[in-house]
């Protein structure tokens, strides 16, 4: 009888313990996620968000990061800014067209073509009027790249840690180091080669428009080709490198994760499968966190690139339209000069785009990293 009572008490105690353990699961899960957030440096990712991104995203953080609401915020911010950007671009276009029209006035007394000094003066006036604008926008592109690089130094390690915890140990480190390396290379090339080349391009197209004939047109084409080719090659090399390392290291990670699970389950019967399931829970938590960091990071990068991209894109289009108008109003050289300025904006936009794309590719490939689940 006594033994029976003892067994009954033991059973009740076990049931109470099991119930207590069951009730504690959500609390433990929350604690685990908080601990994981702390371990992966989520606070750093949130606090390092650039000011321009914080202005758009408001109080959004990693835990509340949602692509749909983020895109909505970005879209509404862009709608609010577009008229301001358009006005600035149109002002520049009006300035250029005014100079072209003034020069075209002289064309009424020179039916066989303007004397060289008038297009020369007009070209210089257009260049002086818009060069400050062009310089400030090129600087904006440079600053955007710097901002992306600075933020990537906080975002990518955090993303890599979360990706590593979710099973993609080799892939995460390979992708992080590839992105860090290529971003550094891009910024070094941008500062030491592409930006000076864009300034040289501006000088060459101005000189080419000021002089009769297309003596310097080939030089301008060469400078443009060098800039665009460098950016294209760098982006392609990064994408290829990321794809290859992702494919190789992703398979290795998946195999390693499966192997570890099998080894645990077979080496420790019963307890092994429990440990394996617990590890899967941790991995799932890390995956969720990795995705949240990735979505938040992508939104932040989109916000950083938004205004430079809009400004440069609108300028590019308006300058091209102004070049077409100038070509019909006056001397061809004016059209060539204005179109050349538009191309310079296009090159800066491509540079910012290359930086943004690298970050996007890196984040997307980290999110899609094979976790071996």
């Amino acid at each position: 009888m006594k033994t029976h009572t003892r067994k009954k008490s033991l059973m009740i105690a076990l049931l109470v313990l099991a119930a207590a353990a069951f009730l504690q699961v959500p609390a433990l899960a929350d604690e685990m996620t908080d601990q994981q957030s702390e371990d992966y440096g989520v606070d750093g990712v949130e606090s390092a968000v650039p000011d321009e991104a914080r202005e758009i995203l408001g109080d959004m953080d990693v835990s509340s990061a949602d692509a749909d609401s983020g895109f909505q915020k970005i879209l509404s911010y862009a709608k609010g800014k577009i008229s301001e950007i358009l006005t600035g671009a149109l002002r520049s276009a009006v300035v250029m067209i005014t100079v072209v029209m003034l020069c075209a006035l002289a064309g009424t007394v020179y039916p066989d073509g303007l004397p060289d000094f008038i297009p020369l003066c007009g070209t210089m006036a257009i260049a002086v009027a818009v060069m400050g604008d062009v310089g400030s926008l090129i600087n904006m592109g440079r600053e955007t790249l710097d901002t992306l690089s600075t933020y990537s130094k906080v975002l990518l390690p955090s993303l890599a840690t979360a990706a590593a915890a979710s099973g993609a140990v080799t892939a995460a480190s390979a992708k992080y180091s590839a992105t860090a390396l290529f971003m550094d290379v891009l910024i070094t090339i941008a500062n030491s080669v592409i930006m000076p080349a864009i300034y040289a391009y501006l000088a060459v197209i101005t000189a080419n428009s000021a002089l009769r004939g297309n003596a310097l047109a080939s030089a301008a084409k060469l400078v443009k080709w060098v800039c665009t080719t460098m950016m294209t090659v760098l982006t392609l090399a990064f994408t290829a490198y990321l794809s290859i390392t992702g494919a190789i290291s992703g398979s290795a990670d998946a195999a390693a994760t499966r192997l570890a699970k099998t080894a645990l389950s077979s080496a420790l019967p019963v307890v092994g499968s429990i440990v394996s399931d617990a590890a899967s829970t941790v991995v799932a938590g890390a995956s969720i966190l990795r995705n949240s960091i990735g979505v938040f990071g992508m939104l932040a990068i989109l916000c950083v690139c938004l205004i430079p991209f809009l400004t440069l894109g609108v300028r590019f289009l308006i300058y091209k339209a102004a070049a077409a108008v100038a070509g019909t109003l006056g001397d061809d050289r004016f059209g060539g000069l204005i179109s050349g300025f538009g191309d310079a904006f296009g090159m800066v936009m491509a540079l910012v785009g290359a930086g943004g794309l690298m970050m996007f590719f890196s984040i997307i490939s980290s999110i899609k990293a094979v976790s071996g689940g």
Partner: protein
Amino acid sequence: MELITKVAIIGIVGALIALLLKKSNPEMALLLALSIGMIVVSMMAGLISGIMRIVDMIESQAGLSHAAVLPVIKCVGIGIVTKFASQLCKDAGEGSVASAVEMAGAASALYIALPLIETLLEMIGGLL
């Protein structure tokens, strides 16, 4: 419309008189052409002031720098005056004088454009 009608009438009548005078007194024909040219230009002064008013408006609204647009206006003015003067010289049969006038016009325009070139070089230097 009224202005251009007046200009057209003065121009045609002046040209006919100059044509009649050219055979007997070419100097007088040249002076007449010069006078008619001056009259026509003075009649167009009102239109030029209208254009300048619009340029001023664009300057203030679009942020067009006065330092950038003034040399252009001067260059265009130099171009028109040079063309008018050189054509008169050619009509008088003085091709070499016409060439000298054109060269002087080009030199003046370049001199006017020098501050622009200087500013542009300074800007490019500042950017680099």
